[in-house]
């Protein structure tokens, strides 16, 4: 493996970690996954049946 291999591998790993963090952040306080998340608060309160 040369220096570029390490760089690319490192970049891919960082991208994956960031992707996981983005998903986790999106889910904090909001789990509906809609486009307004997490600002819309739509899922903070359950509707009454």
């Amino acid at each position: 493996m040369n220096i570029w291999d390490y760089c690319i591998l490192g970049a891919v790993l960082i991208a994956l970690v960031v992707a996981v963090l983005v998903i986790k952040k999106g889910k904090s306080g909001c789990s509906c996954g809609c486009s307004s998340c997490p600002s819309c608060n739509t899922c903070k309160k359950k509707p009454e049946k």
Partner: protein
Amino acid sequence: MTINELKTGQSARILTVGGEGALRQHLLDMGVIPGVELTLVKFAPMGDPIEIRINHYELTLRLDDAKRIEVEPVERRDEAAEKIIKKKKLQMQTAHPGLGEDGIFHPKGSGEPLPEGTKLTFALVGNQNCGKTTLFNQLTGSNQHVGNFPGVTVDRKDGAIRGFSDTCITDLPGIYSMSPYSAEELVSRDFVLLEKPHAIINILDVTCIERSLFLTMQLLEMDVPMVVALNMMDEMVGNGGSVDVNALEEMLGTPVIPISAAKNEGVEELIHHAVHVAKYQEKPLRQDFCDKQADGGAVHRCIHAVIHLIEDHAKRVGLPVRFAAAKLIEGDERVLEQLNLDENEKETLSHIIVQLEKERGLDRNAAMADMRFRFIYKVCDRCITKPKESREHIRSEKIDKVLTGKFTAIPGFILIMALVFFLTFGLIGPFLQDLIEQGISRLSAAVQGWMESGQVSPVLRSLVIDGIFNGVGSVLSFLPVIVTMFFFLSLLEDSGYLARIAFVMDKLLRKIGLSGRSIVPMLIGFGCTVPAVMSTRTLPSARDRKLTILLTPFMSCTAKLPIYSFFVNCFFPGNAWWIITGLYLLGILMSVLVALLFKKTLFRGEAVPFVMELPNYRMPGFVNVWHLLWDKAKDFLKRAFSVILIATVAVWFLQSFSFRFNLIEDPKDSILAAIAGLLVPVMSPVGLGDWRIITSLVSGFMAKESVVASMEVLFSGDLAASLTKLTAASMLVFSLLYTPCVAAIAAVKRELGGKWAVGVVIWQCLIAWLCALAVRLIGLSLGMV
């Protein structure tokens, strides 16, 4: 005679409002009360429902419900003549009451400010489609989606008022009264009653103030500090109307501020007053609207008798006593339960109410609604100069002659939808998609060349090019199609056409057990299933909500577009737009068949009544549409670089290595092939028994876009040679109908519970499998391979 017997354009006065329960209460709350005049505007193209004009706004009603309202014909109302009389009255000058302003004026013994540092909480309350969310965005600087359709907001949204970080304002779903008719109305009522905000900002659509003031009166009864914002004043003044704000403020006993939320006029003054009344807890000066003299004072005496009867109970449970008394007289079971009256008190209560009905000659609900509307008409008589017929209304009438006309409505709807699909999939979308694809392939070639010259390891080259560029890149190219689709959907919603579609389609939808209002979640479902499922909260019955939620997955969401475009471009080039439109139609057809099945099995009974306000057509706001498109694009990009990136790297890894983590030559020996192989026997009958297809479909459960990304990785760009046209057709149908993504299932779980969510996954997969099998069998019988 009854309303349905009127001729188009004929006016009549209401004699009695029949029926019972929540619907009747809802009608009364919306101003359909004995003595009020209305005009029959039109019948829907299929003869049912009807549109009536009452209290200066348009309301829809089904014939069955209209038959319960008795009327007597009157001469056509001359609103212009009424206006002249009112104008004379307006010339009387009223002193400025100065409510809610700085200084020494603190009414009702209030005036002690809340302790420093108290976070002031506000509830933003108003009718549906009166501009609450527009005002919320102005107050907080946020970009919540607004639309020209009753019921865009289905749950509360919080934010701090700009420049006042120690405040929290909550945008609530629109309600017509404090008698909850649907789930989202309950959210608003519970917020005001249980969370006890420091103040209420009551926003009114001043162009139909009679109906809006009904809610205002109930809010005043709650004895919470309040300011009234008269929205759409620009429209009112522009059409020659005016409001004596001082007189209105004096009559309501609470600050009144004219504003235009859309133009950000008067909002600063509103904030100033709202913060002031909240800080100094300045409660409304008036809660008593019943007239001692009217009809012998029957309603007045009844209300005050009940107030004395329940005062101790109301104080104990923390309910405003005037509000509780009014609700008890109206027969509100929730309040009755909350107050916990003993048998003797209940008996006394029923005697008081019987006496009211006897003296007033109206039933309890009609008597209460009549009392409120009498006060409202008195207020309007003194304070409001009605404008001439508004430009917006005249324009809406003209447009409606075509879009809801007897012979033009349905062809118009089909034409508009066909145009939307053609522009999205046939013209604008593909053009922009092609540009992005070219950019991505150039970048991919450049990176590949650079990696080769840098002698990067072949495994990493494969990861970057075959995995990331092929996977994420292929999904990114669909961004323009998705944004274009959302653009047209938001135009339909913002213009007010969506409400007309509900009106036109009600009769048709009733045949499959739904109400016209269900068409809205379904149309939103063409964008994304998650907000579609959430928007079913505007439906007032649990049966309709469940049935609509179960049907929304059949509306093909934009995330499935990449799958269709990908396969159609590969296997049926040149036929993109009509094949994709055909898939959408197949989804609709399946939903109809499933609805008919459910109607006869799980969900017997009738759809809820169709009582809905028809808003005027408006020009969609550029900023609003832009925000929506930006949100959708941002969301799509976020998903592409998070869920889809991880999925493509995972798929690349699992298909490049064996269980011993050795790099493999033939993908058939990979980990992925072994795992996906377990499902091969299930999928073989429908022609999708290839482990690579199965893997892609499974990854689609996380996000539909990743189906294409996974296929690009697994087939290494050689899809056309690996599959047949028949397999592609089966795949298209299976992708259309199989389980929605995990976010949509989470939304279903939240609305209906875990069992229903699991049921949806299994049910959709089963339907998809059966339909894909049918496609395969038909194809084989036609000699396709």
